[in-house]
């Protein structure tokens, strides 16, 4: 990694995490009442998990393209597993789901490695879309057929297709383009803005939240949290414009857009959880729930960001 801008980014990330940890430690010592204690313990669990996630992410990205692709592939796999677990599929879909896990997902990520953009873009929306019902219909079980197929397709789209657009950003740099920016920077810019958007919305909501935005879907979300968080994320994104190929105003608008999409990804996945009667998709990350609870905002923002960048380059 010989990109100075990225080293500054890592440094920035490290200082934010250190700051959060120190803050968490001070709160841990100050707060004594048992009700607030719980909130602080949860906060500290979240901060510890952020450390782990940031370290895994930075190491993977620093290790190069193949490791990055494998890391996101594993993330997709784990998210898909959480998604299918809460999905009411039928015994007859067993082999279809086997294909989804062990054929479509690896092949899709392999296409990113090959940088075969054309097939990457259509493999899941076209071929997997058709092969899923074909495999299931052979079993001959018609109960809820359309709902079952739609759920499997949705899981594959959200957990694999959408998430894969993050490592796919790395494809963009290989074009022989004079002003091409190191695509690793774009990847960092994206993940940082979307995840910071999550945290900032949470923080703004806790500090100023009054008016509920979606009471029936996610009762903790407020207008103040949403607007404040998205705006702050956009400011953060704009302040990073130098490391991107964008102009200042473009970086601002793009950050505003991906943070907003992140918000909608979050509440759409909340709607699914609420419908299925679960609080979290899993409990693999202490304080956060499952992988899918953490990356729900990325799912919705990644494809749009990828294509915006792609138009910008070509």
């Amino acid at each position, binding site marked *: 990694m010989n990109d100075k801008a990225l080293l500054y980014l890592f440094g920035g990330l490290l200082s934010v995490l250190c700051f959060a940890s120190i803050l968490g430690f001070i709160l841990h010592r100050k707060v004594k009442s048992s009700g607030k204690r719980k909130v602080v313990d949860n906060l500290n669990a979240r901060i510890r998990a952020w450390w782990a996630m940031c370290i895994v992410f930075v190491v993977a990205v620093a290790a190069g393209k193949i490791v990055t692709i494998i890391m996101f592939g594993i993330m997709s*796999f784990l998210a898909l*597993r*959480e998604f*299918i*677990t809460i999905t009411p*599929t039928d*015994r007859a879909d*067993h*082999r279809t*789901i*086997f294909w989804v*896990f062990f054929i479509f997902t690896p092949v899709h990520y392999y296409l990113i490695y090959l940088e075969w953009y054309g097939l990457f873009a259509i493999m899941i929306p076209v071929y997997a879309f058709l092969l899923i019902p074909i495999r299931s219909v052979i079993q001959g079980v018609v109960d809820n057929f359309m709902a079952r197929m739609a759920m499997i397709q949705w899981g594959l789209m959200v957990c694999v297709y959408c998430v894969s657009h993050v490592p796919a950003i790395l494809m963009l740099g290989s074009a022989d383009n004079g002003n091409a920016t190191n695509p690793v920077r774009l990847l960092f810019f994206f993940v940082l803005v979307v995840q910071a958007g999550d945290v900032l919305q949470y923080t703004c909501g806790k500090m100023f939240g009054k008016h509920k935005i979606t009471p029936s879907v996610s009762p903790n979300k407020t207008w103040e949290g949403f607007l404040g968080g998205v705006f702050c994320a956009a400011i953060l994104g704009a302040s990073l414009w130098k490391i991107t190929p964008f102009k200042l105003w473009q970086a601002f608008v793009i950050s505003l857009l991906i943070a907003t999409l992140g918000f909608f990804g979050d509440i759409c996945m909340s709607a699914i959880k609420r419908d299925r*009667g679960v609080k979290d998709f*899993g*409990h693999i990350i202490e304080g956060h729930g499952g992988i899918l609870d953490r990356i729900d905002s990325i799912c919705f923002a990644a494809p749009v960001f990828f294509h915006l960048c792609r138009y910008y380059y070509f």
Partner: protein
Amino acid sequence: MLAISKSVSKLFAYFTRVFCGATVYCQTDLTVDVRRIYIANHTSHLDAAIIWASLPEELRNTVRPVAAKDYWDRNSIRRYIACKLLNALLLVRPSKIQNKDISLRETIFEGLNGLVDAVNEGSSLIIFPEGTRSANEEIQGFKSGIFYIAERCAEVEFVPVYINNLNRIFPKGEILPLPLLSRIQFGEPFKLNDGEKRREFIKRAKDNILRLRDGCDE
């Protein structure tokens, strides 16, 4: 019976838990060393392995799953898993006896006495009292074998176990498992009460497992 090394067995337990995405809930402290009979619902061939893998490491040496001989003795891979890794007790299932000369009664009691001997020798057992895997999530009627053992091993504890979602991970009739998430719940231990009838005991055993299931389905 330490033909395989500790590390292989540890690795196998770890792999089983990770593949089945198992989350283990315990209502009781399993590390206390007493002889127990774990009774569980049965939906998958992975059930015995996942219970075994969910137990604390020090207990895995003393616990022996009770499994069907007609399935686990069929080829060398299955035999290796059952006999070497899980240290299973293989039982002849009366329903699978084709030879008419063998007496059903005798086979059943021979098998049950084998289990009683194993408990008396200090082993804990994993038993699926339904006797066979159910095709869906419903729990079928329990067989009376556990009552027979309870009568003969008075001090043994029964631990109800509910296994969730294994029927989707590796259902009856499939050759390849799916890597979904599962939940293994160990409930409060219970014993045979003085003067308890067979039917009452069997019903109580089943109710204890059903309670674990219903307690967590909210």
